[in-house]
């Protein structure tokens, strides 16, 4: 009897993940440790402001640091290999291993310099906020079977509406209330044309983006520049410090001294995750996204549900758009979302169309973006352009199935017409 491989796809994915991690760790040991000439000290700074101080600063020799973290990464990947052989999950090990490689990289890249570690993470969270909102809008649409390329347009519309309304009323609350409506209006176009007219959703999303960019840029030049004082000088939200929680060392100032938009984001992520997997609505949404015919046969109104979810998605993305104006700088700028909607789409795909996965991917992309910004100021051996490419390369690697294949909901992008083939 010949020996047949009995690994399930999940096991294969774990195996490939564990071994990739091992190869990366060894690469990190060689690249950042053995080939490292520089032994200047690197300093991590952990204090942001007035939290209860645990550790203040940590200085270590750059080469020793790279060695230490690379060896740690190798140990984590060995642990991952053992776990995979015992048929267990390897997520924790992968995360720890990845983190160690990142620290080894930092020791190498910032040799002789100081890294404001807490500031780095805080900046990363802020850069992730629009990505997370966008990715949640993507989850709502695509889990119910409607491709959403128009995230960029929804964010931009939200940013524009929030900025203008907050400026006209001189009140951030009005801005926050109007932004989701603007996002939902853009979603309405998507919903009507995709669901009622069965138009190809990729084309549609693309055209909607062009439309929103055109409209907002037109109005920006025609109204917001000439009448700047009334139309484009909105107030911005002030951070709300949550008592006690904001004093937790390291994490407190990062997560609990933010504006209301960020707190709303925590709630939205939690609600979407829980309702998608624990409620009747979530089950129906997933059914409609995977197998609409089956869903229809048990009495779920496929297109109604899709329509509603697409509108919800617009509300979420529109609120996320408000972050660009009332949440950050106040005034609206031409095309100020600058492709963030597409990184959100990348995060959605990289996170395998799951809410938590998408959040993690968005945080990772936000971190890469911020790290690039910090390192380009301190100066590094790697050109900043290549670090900016990282999210896009990661997404291509994910969709080509190099480390486990990502799979979209089966009916994603296919219009449903009762009785017709599609």
């Amino acid at each position, binding site marked *: 009897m010949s020996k047949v491989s009995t690994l399930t796809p999940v096991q294969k994915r774990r195996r490939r993940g564990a071994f990739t991690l091992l190869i990366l760790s060894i690469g990190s040991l060689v690249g950042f440790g053995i080939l490292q000439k520089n032994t200047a000290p690197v300093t991590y700074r952990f204090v942001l402001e007035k939290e209860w101080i645990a550790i203040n600063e940590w200085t270590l020799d750059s080469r020793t640091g790279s060695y230490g973290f690379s060896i740690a990464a190798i140990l984590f990947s060995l642990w991952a290999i053992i776990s995979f052989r015992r048929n267990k999950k390897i997520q924790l090990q992968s995360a720890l291993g990845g983190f160690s490689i990142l620290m080894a990289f930092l020791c190498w890249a910032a040799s002789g310099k100081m890294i404001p570690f807490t500031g780095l993470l805080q900046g990363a969270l802020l850069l992730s906020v629009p990505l997370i909102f966008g990715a949640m809008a993507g989850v709502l649409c*695509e889990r119910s*079977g409607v*491709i959403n*390329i128009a995230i960029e347009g929804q964010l931009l519309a939200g940013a524009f509406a929030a900025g203008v309304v907050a400026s006209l009323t001189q009140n951030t609350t009005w801005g926050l209330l109007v932004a989701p409506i603007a996002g939902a209006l853009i979603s309405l*176009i998507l919903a009507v*044309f995709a669901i009622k*007219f*069965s*138009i*190809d*959703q*990729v*084309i*549609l999303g*693309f*055209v*909607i983006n*062009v*439309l929103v*960019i*055109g*409209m907002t*840029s*037109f*109005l*920006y*030049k*025609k*109204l917001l520049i000439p*009448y700047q004082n009334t139309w484009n000088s909105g107030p911005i939200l002030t951070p709300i410090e949550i008592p006690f929680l904001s004093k937790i060392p390291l994490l407190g100032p990062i997560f609990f001294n933010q504006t209301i938009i960020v707190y709303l984001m925590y709630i939205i992520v939690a609600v979407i995750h829980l309702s998608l997997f624990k409620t009747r609505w979530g089950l129906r949404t997933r059914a409609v996204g995977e197998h609409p015919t089956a869903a229809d046969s048990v009495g779920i109104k496929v297109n109604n549900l899709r329509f509603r979810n697409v509108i919800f998605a617009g509300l979420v993305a529109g609120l996320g758009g408000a972050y660009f104006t009332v949440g950050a700088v106040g005034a609206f700028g031409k095309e100020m979302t600058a*492709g963030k909607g*597409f990184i959100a*789409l*990348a995060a959605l*795909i990289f996170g395998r169309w799951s809410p938590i996965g998408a959040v993690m991917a968005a945080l990772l992309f936000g971190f890469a973006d911020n790290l690039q910004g910090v390192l380009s100021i301190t100066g590094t051996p790697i*050109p900043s*352009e*290549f670090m*900016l*490419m990282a999210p*896009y*390369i990661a*997404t*291509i690697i994910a*969709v*080509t*199935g190099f480390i486990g294949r990502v*799979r*979209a*909901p*089966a*009916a*994603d*992008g*296919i*219009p449903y017409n009762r009785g017709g083939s*599609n």
Partner: protein
Amino acid sequence: MSSIKNKVSETMRAITLPLLAFFLAILSGGLLIAFSNPEIYSLWKSPLKFLSTGFASAGDAYLALIQGSIFDQNLTSKNFLLGFYPLSETFVIAAPLILTGLSVTLAFRAGLFNIGAQGQFIFGAIGASYVGFHYNLPPVIHAVAALLGAMLCAGLWGGLVGFLKARTGAHEVIVTIMLNYISIYFLLWLLSTQTFLRKGRQDPIAPPVQENAQLPKLFGIDYRINLGIFIALGVAYLIHILLTRTTVGFQFRSVGANTLAAKTAGMSVPFVMTSVMVICGALAGLGGAVQVLGSEYALTAGVAGSFGFDAITVALLGRAKPLGTVLAALLFGALRAGGLTMQANTTTPIDIVLVIQALVVLFIAAPTMVRAIFRLKNVKSGTDMAAKGWNG
């Protein structure tokens, strides 16, 4: 006789929808121009004046648009022919737009959605620029070498998409969106390297392409119109022949129409996907070459403008046919060229062009709506593209 009559009615049916869609889009754009002027709301009390002011501002804007794209009598003071300078500008913009539009069109016909024309355009521009400034070659040969260099770079970049799709099933839309961003960052990095840095300059601009590599101007130095437009028209004809008269073109269309049937008929789907994307990449890259060698003469960070993205609206308006693509590119080229004049001479920003572009495509994509508005029955519908999902 009857065959000619049939052909005429067939053509009428084919162009009715795009024309009506364009008319609706221009109308909506006009309304936007008219009512986005906050000053006219003070005339609210006298409705006649209110409306006439609104229509006047829209009319002014569109007049400036035509002046900036076809003929401007203000330029005729020295020489009557100089009044046609705007028309030359239209052709200058249309040339790369035709080529990138063809790239998207060809992909559509093979069932692929090439959002990556922007990135392929950038790689073409890089190839053309490098061959153009780095080598010393005799006239004609240098220009041809630069065009080929552009097609090679962009063809490989485009082929990567087809290869990944054929080998791993990665959806071309996702891959091309990501590759567009990678391309722009790659270009930015390249322009900061020693090779691509112009001597004595710190800003991201490559050395100028040598005179031998530049495409000749057609009507003297007063007009920027150059050989690029003829290259574009020639290539459009070649693509038409490829699609309608050759076996390869038949294979492309078969895979586009029904992948499974094509496979059953013995065609190699992976080969078709890869080769289609190589050609699409080369087409968009040729657009980049025409832009660099014909009008810009140097590689800059913003060399691609929005040619690769406009290409998608061009291909959709042209209904994925080479001739339609040429006409749509000329139209959008005119809108772009005229938009600049409009922005300079009136208070209407050029961004209205984007709105019109998006609306045209939206109306074309929703024939049911246009039919309902004009109460038509006999109109050929749709973009000839069935909706497909991420997994399709």
